[in-house]
């Protein structure tokens, strides 16, 4: 938007933490644990307070679809904090090499750091081996980086997309501690449950095997746009706009697609 630089974070203070009830989708320890930890406090007020947590969820959805010689990776640009919007224009996606991009949903601070760390690793690899890191190598590297923090994980739900050494499209989905798998498509983040079934139907044709066919790049992009529109209808943490990256052998193309702002 005019006057607003991209990736600007015009957010709220994180301290003091939001008072009142536990914000939605955050982990509240079970009542027994809370009561034990706060012995002289009433049952109701125990729900009001919580221990400080290093994690918070900034929401958002990320999805990737792999084609035979292309990949499409999309991420919305809304950053939430509790029930508020911290920013409408924060990117979830990082270009690691010219054939490999990473998108992460979850906590913005973790995402930003993880993306920086991986970019540094990509540069170091290129310096040592005199060639750019391939997408499958980056996939393994990301997994290792995540598992390295097994006992204080990066609160990120990652999707890595790229072309492998043969030029085939590949998408990898991750959990927070680095378990990963190459898949035809994946959605993670706050809207993942809303979108996964759609993609099962429209990319893999699971409910209509008689119609199964290969999707062209333009069809996948239209599908991704539709999926984001649908997610933003029902998920409050997804919206504002979606960044859609398309990688082909000719390079990386980026599109910004507007979503509902409510």
């Amino acid at each position: 938007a005019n006057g607003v630089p991209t990736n600007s974070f015009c957010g709220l203070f994180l301290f003091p933490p939001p008072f009142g009830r536990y914000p939605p989708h955050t982990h509240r320890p079970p009542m027994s644990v809370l009561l034990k930890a706060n012995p002289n406090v009433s049952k109701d007020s125990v729900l009001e307070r919580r221990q400080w947590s290093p994690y918070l969820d900034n929401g958002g959805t990320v999805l990737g679809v792999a084609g035979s010689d292309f990949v499409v990776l999309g991420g919305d640009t809304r950053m939430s904090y509790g029930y508020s919007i911290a920013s409408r224009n924060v990117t979830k996606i990082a270009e690691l090499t010219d054939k490999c991009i990473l998108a992460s949903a979850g906590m913005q601070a973790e995402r930003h750091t993880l993306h920086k760390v991986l970019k540094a690793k990509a540069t170091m690899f290129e310096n040592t081996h005199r060639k750019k890191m391939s997408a499958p190598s980056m996939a393994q590297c990301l997994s290792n980086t995540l598992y390295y923090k097994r006992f204080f994980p990066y609160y990120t739900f990652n999707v890595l997309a790229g072309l492998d050494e043969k030029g085939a499209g590949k998408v990898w989905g991750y959990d927070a501690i680095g378990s990963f798998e190459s898949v035809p498509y994946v959605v993670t983040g706050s809207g993942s449950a809303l979108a996964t079934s759609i993609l099962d139907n429209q990319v893999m044709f699971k409910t209509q095997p008689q119609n199964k066919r290969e999707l062209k790049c333009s069809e996948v992009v239209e599908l991704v746009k539709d999926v984001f529109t649908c997610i933003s209808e029902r998920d409050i943490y997804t919206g504002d706009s979606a960044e859609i990256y398309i990688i082909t052998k000719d390079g990386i193309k980026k599109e910004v697609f507007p979503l509902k702002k409510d």
Partner: protein
Amino acid sequence: MFRNDYDTDVTTFSPAGRIHQVEYAIAAVKQGSACAALKSDDYAVLACVMRKESDLGSHQEKLFKVDEHMGIGISGLIADGRVLCKYLRTECLNHKFVFETPMQVGRLVRKLSDKSQVFTQTSEKRPYGVGLLVIGCDKTGPHVYETLPSGDYYEYIAQAMGKRSQSSRTNLEKYYKEFKDMELGDLVKHALQSLRGASEEKLTKTNCAVAFVGKDRPFTILTGDNLGPYMELAVGGDDNNMDESKKEEEAT
């Protein structure tokens, strides 16, 4: 005669006030094959002669990229040079990670020099036996720096180091006033021409390499076929110049 008594250790001064081990390290730099660097207002160029151990081997690589905006040419103990290159790369990456901005060339060179100085003052260790020509372009413009094992560093408009580099320096001194506004192609040509006297054999596209960096150009190394067009411009140069500077070299 004092030299032999006071040159065993880098932590020993001579009565004349010199540290011979450091000077010997600088002599190691002078034994390496030649490197030359020069800059204009927009670009900095680096060229080197790549020596071959034998016909069976490959040419020794001497130009290294440190970051998108910076690179080095080394002269002397190549192994030491490689280690320093790794250090420079790591420092640049760290700086970019922490400050989200490319490292300024002069600051990196100073860091390297401080590191080199440590080894001129520590017993049981020796100085690095390599000199670097660092070229880079940051927001203060293009730069050429020379670093030495002593921990000294100097900034230049143009400089050459290594074996027979005096002829290169003489050549550069002749033309340096024109470098300011020169086009990149001409700068590369001058860099190669200055190395002609410094090489034992005729310069071809296989035994030398050129690198350049500019405000709008990331650090790029040219070797082999990429170097071809510039070689033709340079080698088809004035032979008289070369003879004159070689005579000067022999006279000194």
